[in-house]
């Protein structure tokens, strides 16, 4: 299996939206590779003909009627927001101003 380079670790941190310090990146490079080494045991097992298991209790197609049901009051939802404007949560702009 693969080995992670420093730039791989930086790329994964970016994908995960984790801001890491240089020290953290260095430590993680060693630790992640040590953990990935443990995964190599799995390559011993032939699994081409094995179906994957995503969940164990064999429930499927849990459906309900598409009807409106009570939800949390707006005030309860907004109570935890770091910043609000009326009934809205203030977030950083994701599009450039026109």
């Amino acid at each position, binding site marked *: 299996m693969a080995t992670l380079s420093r730039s791989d670790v930086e790329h994964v941190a970016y994908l995960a939206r984790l801001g890491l310090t240089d020290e953290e990146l260095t430590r993680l490079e060693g630790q992640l590779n040590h953990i990935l080494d443990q995964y190599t045991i799995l390559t011993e097992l032939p699994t081409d003909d094995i179906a994957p298991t995503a969940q164990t209790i064999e429930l499927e197609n849990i459906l309900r009627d598409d009807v409106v049901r009570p939800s949390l009051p707006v005030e309860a939802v907004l109570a935890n927001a770091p910043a609000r404007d009326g009934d809205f*949560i203030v977030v950083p702009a994701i599009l450039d101003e026109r």
Partner: protein
Amino acid sequence: MADLTRLHAHEMAALLRSGQVSSRELTAAHLAAAERDNRALNAWLTIDRERALVEADAADGRLAAARRGGPGVLDRLRPLLGIPIALKDLVSLKGGQCTAGSRILEGYRAPYDAHITERLREAGAVILGKTNMDEFAMGSSTEHSAYGPTANPWALDRVPGGSSGGSAAAVAAYHVPLSIGTDTGGSIRQPAALCGIVGMKPTYGRVRRYGIVAFASSLDQIGPFARDARDAAALLHAIAGRDDRDSTSSPQPVPAKLAALPSSDDAAAAALRGKRLGLPREYFVAGMEPGVEARVREAVRALEAAGATVEEVSLPHTDYGLATYYIVAPAEASANLARYDGLRYGPHHAEGDVLANYLATRGRGFGPEVKRRIMLGTYALSSGYYDAYYLKAQKVRTLIKADFDALWVQGFDALVAPTSPTVAFRFGDRLADPVAMYLSDACTLPVNMAGLPGISIPCGLSEGLPVGLQLIGAPWSEAELFGLARGYEAITAEADWRSLEPTELLRAADPDAPTPAERMSALAISGSR
């Protein structure tokens, strides 16, 4: 009256019904113990005295009304009415904090009750507060809490296990007779073993998870801690069942037997006769402490002497469990924890554009173990690696589950194994090497991979520290596992170790005792010399 905190919940329930004790008295006694010891143990992140006493008074009102109604009305009262209980700090309690042991949820107040919180309120249980845990339930020692580690009441310089270490320590230290934990790879059973109490992970889907902070959604399950099998079973009975708000909860009926384990030791012991138990040889692994293996094998002999048959069996894919788990669980965690962006709740670090916001909020909000797991999971799911890691692990998961299924088909009632390969370890011993920490759960995590119920029960001491015996059952066999656990309690009722209390409880009560964080730093300094 003798110390109320030493009673089992079913004994408290009898005294409440007869009017010999009130829920207010019970609640006050437990609050006092929790507040007294919390400096030394750090088992609790919040203790809500006022709310607990209000709930206790409400329970006393219901009890008084029932007594006026006579025996028929008293008999219909719920078993948990007026009984103190603790919630792990990832169970939503409306208006209360719910940190999941993380800085990223500091200051967040749950806007609603979890389903199990609703159920416990209906049952009349008195919630004293919320307990410490490894951050987002990732860990086996509670050292990964952002709010400092919890100490083990049996040895204050040792861990209580984890991730539900606060809930386990609170029950072992007689702060509550009952508490709630969650178990993704062993987070109920392993701390139960290390603290010398009973803890069960039910079948996946048995308890609804609405309002619980998610870690790994195909593995997480809620379960009870208690100091005996009857109490743990009664708590599971109170919280189990299907709910529309959790489509992964099962419509399987909840067995009434859970609420009616035998009270007589003779009946409980007799139920062991003819049980067919498997002893999986792969669970007696290199690295297991000799004292742990000795206690487990003694317990097996005691079960045989009581009329159970024990056969050695094989779970051939056990050695692949650790690697499989440490792909599946981090992968699911990395997806679940993507929601913590600091925009809707929790601390927010504004630094320029939206990407800089995310990087700063998540970089500062998550601790080292959570970052490690998010990194592992993100990598395992990333483009080009999915087949090699996540898909491969899901296929191996099928093989692990099939190992167990083969034994149920052969008619085994349960498997008997150690819960943890070691007794409680010292603060700091496994922090430097994540893989050493992960090995703590080698005997518990295959059970989560297969979705099965498992219970840890105390089976004696090794070097003065508790050892846990794990019983693993077929899907939906919780009542049978509790029956075996109750039988084992009955046949060992007179054992010397049963009468021992955690050895360092008196030291935990010292108002000048060092905190667990202080003990941990002291050990780190002496270890580096």
